[in-house]
Structures are given as C-alpha cells and as structure tokens.
C-alpha cells in the first residue's frame, strides 16, 4: 500500500517542488538580477504598476497551485471512495467570474492613468532632440542655438546622447531603413522607430550618470551591437558639452 502510494505520488511531488527550487538554487548565486535603477519621472509609476500586477498575480498563483496540490492529495484515489457526481455549481461559477472581472477592471483603470501620462499629450518641452536610427547606429541631432532643426547650427552626434537632468525632453524618433526600437531600461520605456513615421516621446531624467541605449527590435545582423550611450548631466554641463560638440563639428 505504502509502496504504491510512493510510486504514484513521489514523481508528482518531486517535479512540482523541485522545479522552482532548481531555479532559485541557481539564481541566488551572484548579483541580484532584477529591475535596473529607475531614472525617469515615470519610472516609479511604472514600477508601482509592475509591483501591483506582481502581487496580484502572485496571490492568484499561490492560491491556484496550492488548491491544485491540496486537491491532488486530498482527492487521490482511495479504495472504497467514489468520486462525487456533480456537473458544476452555478453560484460558484458566477463568483469566480465576477471577482477576477472586478480586479481586471480596476487594473485597467490603474494602467490607463499611467498610460495617458506616459503616452498622452507631452508637457511643454525644455529641449527637443531628433534621433534617427539606422542599421546599426543612433544619429542624434540637437537644434542648436536657434532652436530649429535642419539649420546651419544643428549639432550632430553618433551614438552619443546627452540630456540635461530634471528638464522635460521631447524626442522625435525617425528611422532611415528598417524598424528599430529606442530602449533605455532605466527610463522604463521603449519606443519603436518606424521608417516613414516620426514618433514623439517625452521624458524627464531624475538622476545623472552614464546609461546605455539598446535597440529592442530586431533590425538585422548588427542588431545586438546597435548600442548608444546616454549621459544625464546638469544643464550647465550639458550646455558646455553641446558647445564643445558644435566647435568640433565646425572645425572639421
């Protein structure tokens, strides 16, 4: 009897229990692999939403998997006991439809609040930058002194994006060839860059430092090395850098 129980149940338990612990045994070693530092004004809000979803789904996960395991043990086949004959329960079904429905609607509203802020009409911009993606580089264009693009005093760089801290920045994204995606993990957003379309995104950085721009949409064989460098710095440092770049550009 005991032997039969073991043969039947041990593989099931081992696989259900070992699976997650196998993952954690490995992932615990080394540095923490989790969300990178958030450095834009919207990052905390996106993170908050992420954690709301994480908590909700974790609760559902534990409840469902726990119920599954409890049922597997409790209602395992035993001699002399017959399964109950039931085709369902209307009331229970209504309850377990309504509860997730309410949670999902609430979540949709939570999400919409942040979405309309991130993707809605941008606030007035302190600085506008044009970023043109191509296989496999980011071309950056600043309007320069006159504040207008495509004039004599535009400042052009390749793969070097400098942004002043705490200012609202409007980025115009364009592509020369195929679709790319402008992804700065620390800003918590990405925006595809589509040929034939100019897409506008806004952001405001909250922490100075050196970061990286990754291309997040497959764009060909050099996709993996389409990396840009982002520097967030004080407005003074930024102005000085821009002037420096302009000088270099006119000298050459």
């Amino acid at each position, binding site marked *: 009897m005991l032997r039969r129980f073991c043969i039947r149940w041990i*593989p*099931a338990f081992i696989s*259900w229990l070992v*699976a*997650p612990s*196998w*993952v954690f045994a*490995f992932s615990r070693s080394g540095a923490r*692999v989790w969300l*990178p530092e958030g450095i834009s004004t919207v990052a905390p809000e*996106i993170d908050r*939403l992420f954690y709301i*979803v*994480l908590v*909700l*789904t974790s609760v*559902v*996960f534990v409840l*469902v998997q726990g119920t*599954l395991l409890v*049922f*597997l043990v409790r*209602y*395992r086949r035993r001699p002399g*006991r*017959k*399964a*109950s*004959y039931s*085709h*369902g329960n209307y009331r229970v079904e209504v309850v377990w*439809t309504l509860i997730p429905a309410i949670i999902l609607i609430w*979540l*949709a509203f939570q*999400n*919409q609040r*942040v*979405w309309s802020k991130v*993707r809605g009409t941008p606030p007035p911009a302190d600085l506008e930058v044009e970023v043109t993606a*191509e296989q496999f580089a980011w071309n950056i264009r600043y309007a320069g002194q006159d504040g207008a693009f495509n004039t004599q005093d535009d400042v052009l760089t390749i793969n070097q994006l400098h942004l002043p801290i705490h200012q609202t920045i409007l980025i115009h*994204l364009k592509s020369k060839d*195929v*679709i790319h*995606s402008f992804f700065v*993990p620390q800003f*918590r*957003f*990405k*925006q*595809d860059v589509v*040929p*034939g379309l100019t897409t506008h995104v806004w952001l405001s950085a909250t922490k100075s430092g050196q970061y*990286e721009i*990754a*291309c997040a949409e*497959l764009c*060909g*064989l050099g996709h993996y*090395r389409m*990396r840009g460098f982002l520097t967030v710095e004080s407005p003074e440092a930024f102005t000085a850098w821009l002037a420096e770049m302009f000088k270099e550009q006119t000298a050459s």
Partner: protein
Amino acid sequence: MNRSSHKSPGFVQKYIFSTDHKTIGIQFLITSLFMLFFGGLLAMLIRWQLGWPGHSLAFMEKIAPEGMPGGIMVPEYFNMLFTMHGSVMIFFAIIPLLVGVFGNYLIPLKIGAGDMAFPRLNMISFWLVPVSIAIVCTGFFLQGGAAASGWTAYAPLSTTMGPGQLCWIIGVIVLGSSSIMGAVNYITTIINLRAPGMTYFRLPMSIWALFITAIITVLATPVLASALILLLLDSTLGTSFFLPAGMIIDGVLQPNAGGQALLWQHLFWFYSHPAVYIMILPAMGIASEVIPVFARKPLFGYHSMVWAIMAIAILGFLVWAHHMFTSGMNPALGTSFMASTMVIALPSAIKTFNWLGTLWRGSIRLTTPMLHALAFVSMFVIGGLTGIFAAASTVDLYLHDTYFIVGHLHYVLFGGSLFGIFAGITFWFPKMFGRLLNETLGKIHFALTLIFFNGVMFPMFILGVAGMPRRIYDYTQYAHLAHVGGLNRMMSVSAFCLGAAQLIFMFNFFWSMYRGKKAGENPWQANTLEWATASPPPHGNFEKTPTVYHGPYEYSVPGRKDDWLPQHQPAK
C-alpha cells in the same frame, strides 16, 4: 456506403497516400514530432550561444561552416536560428500536432463517423505540410541561409533579406492553405456527420475546441496568406505595400513610396493572435477531456467551458494590437486593446477554475496523461498570469521585446500547448497503436520535462525584468546585463537536459508501438465514442454507427456499479 466492398488497399494507398483520417492523423504525428525534435535542436544551439557567448562548439563547423566558422557562431546565424526555431515550432510542430493530429484522428471517432466529410481534401491538407517544410527548409541550403527576420517577419527588414526569406514566405503560404483545407473539413464533418443522438451539447470538449479552432483558422488564415502575398510582392516585384518613401538601405535610396510598415504588423497579428488560440484551445480541449477521465468525475461546468471557448475565439480577434503597444500606433488604440486584453483573461480564468472544480471531490489517478494534463493547467496558469503584465500596456512599455515575453510565450506554448500535446499523445496512444505506453518511462519523462522546462523558462521572467532584450546575439556588452551570465548558463544546462529527456519519450513511443502491453478497446474506462471500437479502429471506425444517449462525462453516476457510463450505452 458499403464498407465491406472495399478492396484491401496496397501499401502506398494504405500508408502513404491514404484517405483514412486515422492514417493521416498518424502521418501528421510522425512528421510533426520529427519537426518538434528539429526545432528543439535549434533551440539548444541558441542556448549554447546565450550560455557561453562566443565559445566554440567544434562539431558544428562541419554542419554549418558558414554559420559557425571554427565552431563560433556568427550573428546572422543566431538570427536565423531563433527565426527558424520559432517558425518550425509554431508552423510545423505545435499547430500540426494539435490541429493536424488530434483534429484528424479524433473528430470522426469522437462524433461516431466513419471518416471525414472530405477524405481527399484531408489527404491533400496533409501532403502540403511536407511540401511546405521542404520549401521553408530549402533556405538552409541557399546563399545567406534560411529566414532570419524573426518568426514575425516584420517589414521592411524581411523585404531586405535573401532567398531564404522568400522560401519562408512561400512555405508559410502553402502551410496556410493546408490549414484552411483541414479546417473546412473539420467544420463540415462536425456539422454533418455526427452520430444519431450526438447533439452539440453532447460533444466532448476536445471536439468543441477543435470545432472553434477550425472556425478561427478559416477566418484568420486567409488574412495571413494575403499579407504574405503582399510581402512577397514587396520583396520581389518592387511594390510598396509595407515600404514607405525615403528608406535608405545599405546606402541606397529605395524607390518605394506610399507604404506603411505598421500595416504588416496589423495584418500579421490579426492572424497571429487568433493563431495563439489555435495553439491553445485544442490543448485546453485535451485537458478537459483527460482530467474528468482520471478524476472519475463529470467535467465541472461543461456549458460555461463551451461558452468560454467561444468567448475566447470572438475576443481573440479583438486583441491583436496588444503586440504593438510600443510600435508607434496611436496611444488611444493602446487603451482599447489594453481593455480588450484584460477582458480575454476572464474566460481563461473561468476554464482554470473549472478544471480545479473537476478535481474537487474526485477520485484522482495519476497516470502519465493525467500528470501531463495537470502540468498543463499548472503551467498555463503561469503563462496566463504573466500575460497580465504584458496586457497592462504601461508595464509592457518596459517588458515588451524582453525575455519576459519570451518566458510568457513559452509558458503558454510549451507549458500549455506542449504539455497538452503530451497528455493527448499518451492518452490516445493506446487507441492509435493498440498498445499501452510504458508508465514508468512515461512518468520519468514527465518529471524531467517539468523540472527542466521550468529551469529554462522561469529565469526568462527574471531576465526580462532585468531588461534583457530578446533576439540578442551577445548580451554581455551591455552594462546592465553584466551579471546575468550565471542565470543564462543555468538555463542552457536545463535546456540540454530538457532535450535529453525527450529521448526517453521517443524511445518509449517507438518501443511501445511494437512491444507495449496490448491495450484493449477501453484501457482508461472512458466514456467517449472512440473507446467503443477496437484499438486501433478498423477502416470505417465502427462496426455499426453508434447511437448516443448522454453527454461525454458521465462518471461516477450514483446507483451504478461501474464508475463510467459510455455515451453509446443507455443508462438502464
């Protein structure tokens, strides 16, 4: 038709160009299991590069001298590998396994019919699959290799590729025609050839799922086919459906004008999101079929299960642009697709609760098919819940195109579909071949698969949260990914073990086909009609067309000695 008047068919007619739905089902099974194995090998090469970027895998130099010179993978080859892994798994493994195998094998048997409504169409629909595989895989032998623009083939990148990409486009069009032929056949068969007494609400859930899947296929696949034809024209004849003016590729100004790159994504996802349900509904049907048999209990909420499938099918056509939250489409569209995506989570939740309800106060037997069906429920829950992260459009701005999405889709397609497929194969193997699979080997295969599947796929969520983009040949150059190497290596080791575990399945499959214990008509003591005939069933399936008296899940009916009541047996 008088079945006894059939002349005994020759070898070719019986095993190769057969019009018998059972033979066609098994042909689909062997073909797509082979492709599943091939797709898995491609995945292991991907994992090699991700676990040990730039390390040499010496023997591969002989197989792919251009893609892996000196055994070291080049980026183009990596792009080709994940493109072909996705394409092979979706088009040649999961869809044919779920729809081709179970659709063909089960529909006539479970509704009490002698064969499909259009047996010849059925034969063509199978034979187009090897043709399609041949066309797509020809790319491996052409200059520049097979398709390398992702299984989504986003324009304009896909139009700038070499001949391998054209093979991919043509091959997928051929496969789409095969799916449409199969689907038309399934719909007609289910509507017209049901045995007397087999009303719609006495159909087993697997048949409901395949029926709805066939309807989705008929509605969605032509959209993909037409989009692919437009893509082919853009790539070869210089049209501009998806190509805007002013593109400069390799320093050359392209002559196109007036196209829309996002149009491809809309058309592609208009097919491919419903296709996600093509790849999960039949697996849900299988789970709904297997769980009551081994819980010895009627399916909980049969009617709501049917309505949930229908709701998923309808809503499935209204959520496609949730793949495009970051694409640059109007943000207002993002809101509506976020809302519809939240809604589609509901029917899936209802189905999960109903499976749990079926287990409640059952008498559970943990056979191999049952273990796979339970793993389906358990893993599908993870796939579904992680979908909510992606559905919340703002969170998706961060998670889109990272490994989080790769993890999510593998929990749905491997954790969901493939465990459903394993449940189905192990459940119906005795019917298909007349012999039982070895239970011990089956359980070992199950346990190893579940452990190593989680070992590969679960860390993907963590990597995605850490901001690791998908489809990336070498992540080590990014500062924010400097510390993910250990996790990646652990995933790769799991992937190789996962692949090795499938050899146990292969061995068990072929060994049991000849050496397994004889199964008899009804080894699982199940109710549905396929168990009312010999294993394997004769040509024409039933000696006499059965009459159906009740629904498919009458288990443990009070007052009866046996705890099952077959559909073709009257209660008294």
